[in-house]
């Protein structure tokens, strides 16, 4: 039953994928201009790139996202935990989060570049900045939503703070954390694109803009497709984590 449903879902995805190419091809016939090459041309261009080239660019982008997400998770988890478990820290930090939350983080890009240069640091920091406020807030609320008596049995047999965090707080807050990551991932990928325009010769953002400047449209589209693949892989990963750790909800 489950396998059948999954197959069903995958075949629907493939159908949509195929349908999008049909639309693309129709548009290509309609527009009839080098700025919109046919799907076939674009896949040929992708083929010419060579595996090594693709792996390096996709790899750089994925690495930056991973580093940014990981950093945001670690710091967000710590601050969120502090705010969720101690009302004093919550009172202190809540206004800070409240005031900084609506600041459009992408507007901070020039500031981050000024302070941290054009290298990897500023790219990773930008992704972290996009995610961290969401994560702080959702971790805090996720932790507060865990009923206090969930800890009782472990407390009564003498569990320490580390054990309580690992067995109760973290798994209890995980579902909110995962859905926050899922929601913020789209923004994080867009920001990644911006940060890859400067100061690097690797990554999908660089690749797309480079092809654009060289007026190599098939390669530009190949880059856009690969960039979408990066996004798809990331969403798949979050879904896998969700499947692995959220089984208990059903």
């Amino acid at each position, binding site marked *: 039953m489950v396998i059948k449903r999954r197959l069903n879902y995958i075949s629907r995805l493939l159908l949509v994928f195929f349908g999008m190419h049909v639309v693309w091809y129709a548009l290509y016939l309609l527009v009839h201009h080098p700025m919109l090459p046919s799907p076939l041309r674009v896949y040929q261009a992708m083929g010419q790139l060579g595996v090594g080239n693709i792996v390096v660019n996709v790899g750089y982008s994925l690495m930056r996202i991973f580093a940014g997400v990981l950093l945001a998770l670690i710091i967000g988890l710590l601050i969120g935990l502090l705010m969720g478990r101690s009302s004093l820290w919550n009172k202190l930090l809540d206004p800070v989060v409240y005031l900084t939350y609506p600041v459009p983080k992408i507007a901070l890009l020039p500031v981050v570049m000024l302070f941290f240069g054009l290298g990897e640091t500023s790219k990773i920091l930008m992704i972290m900045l996009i995610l961290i406020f969401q994560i702080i807030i959702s971790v805090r609320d996720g932790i507060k939503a865990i009923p206090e*008596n969930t800890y009782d*049995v*472990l*407390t009564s*047999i003498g569990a320490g703070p580390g054990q309580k965090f690992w067995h109760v707080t973290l798994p209890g807050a995980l579902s909110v954390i995962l859905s926050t990551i899922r929601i913020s991932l789209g923004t994080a990928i867009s920001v990644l694109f911006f940060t890859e325009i400067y100061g690097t010769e690797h990554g999908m953002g660089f690749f797309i803009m480079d092809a654009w400047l060289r007026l190599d449209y098939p390669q530009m589209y190949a880059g856009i497709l690969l960039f979408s693949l990066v996004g798809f892989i990331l969403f798949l990963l979050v879904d896998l984590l969700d499947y692995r750790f959220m089984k*208990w909800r059903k």
Partner: protein
Amino acid sequence: MSSSRNNGLCVKELEVEYKSGELALGRVDFTLPEHGIYTILGPSGSGKSTLLRAVSGLLLEFRGELLFNGQSLREQDILIGLVPQNYGLLPWKTVKSNIRVAMKIAHPKGQDRRSQEAQIDRWLSAMGIQELADRYPLSLSGGQQQRVAIARAFAIMPSILLLDEPFSALDAITREALQQLFLEHWQANPTTALFVTHDVDEAILLGQKIIVLPSNKRDAPEIIDNGTVFGLEHGEKRSSDAFFAQIKRIRKVMQAKW
């Protein structure tokens, strides 16, 4: 029970007040001998859960004293098995790993992995739930969750076992089956146990003594000796004269104090 006066759990003039200054638990005073089992009977709000929270160390502010074998309970490293009113299972862990986690925390330097797993399997089958081992608590019925919570409490082999209305959410038939099951396993491993209930029959079936908490917290609790019923075969208790005599006696106390 030929234990000396010092042996067992001594609850000495215990009284709990929440911040408001209102009594949550009126003064109780009793000594539960080691390897003995008492039931605590009381109306809703009389402080039954509060009493267990104090003994289990979840509630640290109270008047009076808690001693185990003559020494302060908190200052000793005494393992306490708790079956809370809401079962207290971690929803994100399977039945098996709920028990495993508790065993690991209770006995950090405990047995090797293999014998620990064997122990878990033993308790699961003792409670008749071995086929639920890999299920998650949210997919279990109330009665099944009860069994898991009890299996977990027994599996950690505590020195004191505290049960908070463990059978209250069950239908009469399941409840009787679990009462018998519980008593059998308690008799095989007689842990010092406090069993909270608001069911008169259950209090008489399971306790060597019955502590009846009053609804007015200024009144003293009544402690009723139940040895005559407790000594009978479990299957014969309900039809015995002693059982009916106890019911009458407790009803009288209830009329006066509930």
